[in-house]
């Protein structure tokens, strides 16, 4: 085969893989077909260039083929779990083997503190809380690093992040029950998650598509995780009820071992499900986003009205700070999700107006929060919680303003939706830097209070 054709076949294959995430086996089959088609055309006297042009054109419906094939695979979903002996299912069952291994490893890592004599009861609880994400996210990182063959510099960054955070959260002399301990526990998962994003995207992290893929992946994984955890809660509940009924009190065992193990194994299983059974959740997630965007909009507008009437400082307690940041993050996530799931060709229509309204409502709430924080800062000075809240609300405000501006530009016909997504992706590293400060810097600044 001429050397000229090879890179173009590779590009063709890469494009299909990107669009459809078809298993390698099916991709190979389609590529074979293309090559057969090429050979046939060459025999008829076409040049390499002409032959490739015609062959690709004939396979023009490849996206349809791939989609059809993906559907066949999705139908296969539950069979894979039960009929692992089938010859065709072998690669999948080997994948399953690794996943189960990884899930067990996560559950086992969760027991490492016991080696240091730290149990989950009383004071040890905080240690577990701070370490929670370290039990499982590094496993996901390692899995994707291997799968994507990430370049060495990225691997070094990831290993450094994991090791440094493990040392920091366990060697920093946190005061028990202190604010910094709690804030680190909340922010470390976010830091590690962004690091996981780096492993997920590999060397494509500079592109727009790959990080966006990761954002969608995170959303889909979250949905799967919620489903699995619901099952887990039922399971643990039943275990407690049944064994207590026969006079064996297992509540603490069930929580500490069974429940905790399920909790840690869930992200691994969820990631596997998203990777292999994506079409199932992919259809569900945009629907959920579309149902909840209007509902959230109503809730937020009502809340803004309530604040205007009651005139209370809503930033008085820590839980409220976290809830507001969570809400704003959710808004960004839903808008992105909705946007990335819509066809590019669609003009600026009602759903986009709703998204813009949602962003603006979020901005108003963010301003209220910032106003409240500023007031308290003036009165009492800086504290760990207020510093965290200030930083996060400023970050989110900039994020929301950027999204709003990009949206308005699209509405005015000055930009495309791709620009909105691009803006969001370019902003992600800022979060990473902030999370690094929250985990490593903040406790030191406030002397581990």
């Amino acid at each position, binding site marked *: 085969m001429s050397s000229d054709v090879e890179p173009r076949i590779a590009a063709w294959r890469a494009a299909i893989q990107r669009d459809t995430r078809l298993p390698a*086996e*099916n991709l*190979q*089959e*389609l590529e*074979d*077909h293309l*090559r*057969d*088609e090429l050979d046939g055309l060459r025999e008829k006297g076409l040049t390499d260039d002409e032959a490739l042009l015609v062959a690709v054109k004939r*396979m023009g*419906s*490849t996206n*349809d*083929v791939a989609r*059809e*094939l993906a*559907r*066949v*695979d999705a*139908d*296969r979903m539950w*069979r894979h779990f039960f009929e692992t002996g*089938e*010859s*065709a299912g072998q690669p999948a069952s080997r994948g399953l083997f690794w996943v189960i291994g990884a899930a067990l490893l996560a559950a086992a890592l969760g027991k490492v503190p016991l080696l240091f004599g730290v149990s989950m009861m009383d004071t040890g609880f905080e240690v577990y809380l701070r370490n929670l994400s370290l039990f499982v996210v590094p496993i996901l990182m390692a899995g994707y690093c291997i799968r994507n063959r990430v370049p060495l510099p990225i691997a070094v960054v990831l290993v450094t992040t994991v090791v440094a955070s493990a040392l920091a959260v366990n060697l920093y002399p946190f005061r028990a029950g202190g604010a910094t301990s709690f804030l680190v526990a909340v922010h470390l998962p976010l830091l590690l998650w962004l690091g996981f994003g780096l492993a997920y995207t590999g060397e494509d992290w500079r592109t727009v598509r790959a990080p966006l893929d990761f954002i969608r992946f995170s959303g889909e994984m979250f949905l799967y995780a919620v489903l699995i955890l619901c099952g887990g809660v039922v399971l643990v509940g039943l275990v407690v009820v049944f064994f207590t009924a026969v006079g064996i009190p297992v509540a603490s065992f069930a929580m500490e071992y069974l429940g905790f193990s399920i909790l840690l194994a869930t992200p691994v299983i969820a990631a596997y499900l998203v990777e292999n059974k994506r079409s199932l959740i992919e259809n569900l997630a945009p629907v959920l986003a579309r149902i909840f965007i209007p509902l959230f909009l109503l809730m937020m507008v009502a809340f803004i009205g309530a604040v205007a009437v009651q005139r209370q400082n809503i930033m008085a307690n820590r839980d409220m700070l976290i809830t507001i940041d969570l809400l704003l993050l959710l808004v960004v996530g839903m808008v992105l999700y909705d946007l990335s799931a819509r066809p590019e060709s669609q003009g600026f229509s009602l759903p986009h107006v709703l998204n813009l309204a949602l962003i603006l409502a979020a901005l108003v709430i963010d301003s209220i929060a910032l106003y409240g924080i500023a007031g308290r800062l003036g009165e009492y000075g800086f504290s760990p919680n207020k510093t965290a809240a200030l930083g996060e609300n400023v970050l989110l405000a900039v994020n929301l303003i950027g999204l709003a501006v990009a949206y308005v530009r699209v509405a005015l016909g000055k930009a495309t939706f791709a620009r909105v997504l691009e803006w969001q992706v370019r902003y992600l590293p800022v979060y990473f830097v902030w999370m690094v400060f929250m985990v490593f810097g903040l406790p030191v600044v406030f002397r581990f209070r």
Partner: protein
Amino acid sequence: MRINRDLTAAFVTPLVLALLAEAEGYGYDLIKRVRDSSDGAMQWSEGMLYPVLHRLEKRGLVSSSWKTADSGRRRRYYAITQRGRAELARQTEEWRVVLRTLEGHGIGHTREGDHRE
């Protein structure tokens, strides 16, 4: 003339099974064999065939295996299974009834003189 999609969908399963019962084959090869035996009337697209093959495999009617062809390229070959043969026999019976009925109403006859009310 070309055969339309709905009609193709109706008989693609028995035909694929029959082709594989004659000899195992890969996707491109099956498309070629059908084109040749129909004198070019049946131009199957890979968009139709591969999903069908994968579904048949899922149902256990055909099995697939990767083999290295003479050209040195690895190809996915499909072969009919025992269950596939049973299914083919069953569908052959059905088609016999269908064809006989069609013929009884003058459809499927090639001679001019058979076209009568």
